[in-house]
Each structure stands twice: as C-alpha cells, then as structure tokens.
C-alpha cells in the first residue's frame, strides 16, 4: 500500500485538477448585457420603467444625463451596492456592471430628485 502511495497521490491530483477545470469552465463569465438608461425630464427612459432581470445575470448599465437644460442627476440601485455616484452634468455618462442577486425587488433612483426612479425585479420567472 505504501509503495503505491505516490501513484495514488498523482492520480488524485489529476482527478481533482480535471474536475476543477470542468467546473470552472462552466462558470466562465458571460458577456454582460447592456442596458441603457436615459435621464431626461426628471425621468428614467421617460416612464421610470420596471426592469426585469434573471438571477445571476450580469448587466452593464450605461446611464446618461440627456437633459436639455442644466439639470444634474446621479444614479443608485438600493441594495445592490451601487451607491449614489458623482453628479452627472448634461451629456455625462456613468457605467456600472452589476451581477444580479438571487431574487428581490430593488429600487433605482436619482438621489437628488424625489420620485425619479423605479423598480428592478429579479426573479427566476
């Protein structure tokens, strides 16, 4: 038994390595989906829509201040670690990538304007 130990050890390492490789391959991060949000007339995408995402989905938010007058905005998603960023002047953009959690309803808002914001729903279906 002792004599065979090095061989056994080598086999164990190989098997473990193969398993790990397989597992990691399945987990390769997919390209994040791009979602654009336009802040105009004190609203996101005109209607402050309710977004629906799947759990674990990676989303790349591109948030732009499209106001025609000198109105400053910023952007946060409550409960997803996307905090109020620096204020954006008209024309400025903020990009942030988020991995959606397992489930829940998350409020997105402009931190400076009450009522400007909506909900992101994360659910399996």
């Amino acid at each position, binding site marked *: 038994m002792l004599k065979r130990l090095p061989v056994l050890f080598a086999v164990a390492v190989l098997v473990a390595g193969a398993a790990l490789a397989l597992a990691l391959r399945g987990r390769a991060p997919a390209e994040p989906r791009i979602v654009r949000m336009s802040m105009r007339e004190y609203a996101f995408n005109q209607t402050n829509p309710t977004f629906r995402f799947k759990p674990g989905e990676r989303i790349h938010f591109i948030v732009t201040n499209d106001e025609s007058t000198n109105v400053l905005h910023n952007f*946060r998603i409550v409960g997803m670690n996307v905090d109020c960023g620096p204020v954006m002047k008209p024309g400025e953009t903020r990009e942030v990538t988020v991995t959606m959690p397992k489930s829940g309803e998350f409020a997105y808002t402009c931190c400076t304007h009450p009522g400007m*914001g909506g909900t992101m729903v994360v659910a399996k279906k």
Partner: protein
Amino acid sequence: MVVWFANGGSRLLALTPAPIEKLAFERIEFRPQEIVLHVRNEGPETFHVAQILINDAIWDFSIAPDRSLGRFGAATISLPYDWIEGEPYAVTVLSGNGLRHETTVDIAMPAPSPSGRLLTAFALLGVYVGVVPVFLGLLWLPALRAAPRAWVEFWLALTMGLLVFLGIDTLKEALEIAGRAPSFVNGVLLTALGAAAAFLGITAAGRALSRGEGSATGMSLALLIAIGIGLHNLGEGLAIGAAYTLGEVALGSFLIIGFTVHNTTEGLAILSPLVEGRASLRQLALLGLIGGGPTILGTWAGAFTYSTPLSLLFLGIGAGAIFQVVRILARAQAKGGSALDALGHGRAAAGFIAGFLLMYATSLLVAG
C-alpha cells in the same frame, strides 16, 4: 367532522375577520446613508410587505429575496436614508392587509462590521470586563488561605449567595428579552431549554471530573465553577455586544466599572474550593481564562451576529450552569448532605446573605 371542516365549518375558528400577523425585526443596521432591516414572518399566514415608513413617511426600499414572506420566511430590506447618529428612529412596515408593524431605535449607531480594529476593540472590552476582574478576584487566594478556617465556610456560603443572585439576575434578563421578543412563549421555552441543558451538562461534567468519586472537590470543583461562570459570562458578553448593535445603550465608563466589580466577585467564587489544597499559578491562570474568556466570544457574537433566540438560549445556559454549580458547591459543603443543610447554620447563612447583598450592591452600579 372532517366533512364539516372541509365545507367551511371551520369559519367558526377564524373568529375575527382581522388577519393574524406577526413580524419580527431581527436586526436593524445603520450603514452609510442606508438603513437595513432584517425581518422575519412569525405569523401563521403569508406576510406581504407593502410599504415601509420611516418616522411616518413612506420611503423607497429594496427587498430580497421576495416581498411575500411565507411562514418563518425572512427578508432583508434596504432603505436609502440619511440617518443621523444618536437620533431615534421609528420604522414601520405596512403589510398588504394594511396593518402596522413598528420598531423603534432609541439611538442610531453605525452598524459594526467586522474590521480588525473593531474586533480588537470588542476583544479588549471582553478582556477588561471579563478576564481582568476574574483574575483580580483570584488574587484574593492568599488572603483567603491566611484567614481562619471558620471563615472558609463563610466564604463558600458567600460564593453561593453570589452565584444564586447571578443566576436569578440572568433569568430576569432572559425573561425581559423574551417579553420584548415577538413570540413570548417560545422565548421562555428557549431559556428553559438552555437552563436544563446546562444543568444536566454540568452534572455530567462534574461526574467526569471527579471520576466517579462522588462529588467533586478542590480543583475539579473550582474548574466546574469556572466553567459555569464562563458560560454565564458568554451570555453577558452577548448582551454587551448586542446592546451596542441595537443602539440601545451608551456604554459609559460608569457601566464598565460596574461590570468590573460585579465580575471580580465571580473570581472569588472560583476561589472558594481552593482555599484548602494546592493550586499552581498556571492552574489559577487557566481557571481565570475559562471563567473570563468567554466574555470576549460573547461580545463578538453579540456585536456581529445578534439573534434573539440565540441570546435567550445562552442566557438560559448561563443561568442553568450557575444553579447547578451552586448545588454542587452546597453539597460539597454539606459533605454528602442536602444543599440546604449547608446553609442551615449561622455563619453559613450570614455568608449567603452577604453574598447576595454584595452582588445586589454591585448590580446597582451596572443598573441598566
């Protein structure tokens, strides 16, 4: 009968049209510009979180994993709010049925997140409040040894009085928390469970330590007492850590002095069986650590992962441990007789009452 039930005859059981709801606020954290609530549905029906009010104002919020909480289901609610440190807040959950579930925080304190600095701070607190006083108490050993034999009895009785007071105090604290907690009966049962477990556990430990010689004496007894006190201090540490997190208490230096004196007397309790016999410094140090060390663990647990059921369980364990230790001490005193025999005569009774009074006096310092 089954047919009657199936056809809605059980409507009689639902005596009121008002829905039965019970929402427990397990934890409230004040993070930078955010308030996070951890809630759990303790009612019999599904709970729908409809609106959240902070100081009676409807507020935006995020909720995970779901707005609907099944039986015993939990949720984490995040509210973007610029809270002010030290000020009180009332948070209300309005359910789908329009019922209010409110909790208040008297003093908003930033949520402690395990950082090296904070861990060290709490550890030091535990050392200061738990370990050091117990060691101070242990320093009395030479004095005790020099004292006349008759006083040993007195000291042992004092110790028992001390411990009984401690046990009753622990139970009182547990019942207070259980009363505040949403499901009263479960709280009391949890405490009782902890007490019973500790009681029986210490008995078993005692048997193991004395290796079947009957009752434990000397070092084994001191060890048992140290374990009992250690368990009690675990609960105490939990209380300190939790109070800090729930924003309920401003731990002033006044309070810490109180705790310190209170715990010095615990060192005395550990000492009593060692007055006759030998004890090396190393053994004494070990006893001190066993008695005082758990305060550190308790403070960490209370500050970072507070939960009412856990705290009630540990308080119960603490109380049960103490009572069992007292019983062991008493039987050791009575040398085979019953526990009450030990306290029957003058000096012992005086000692017991003195112990009680001493703890009462020091508890006044802790008062809160």
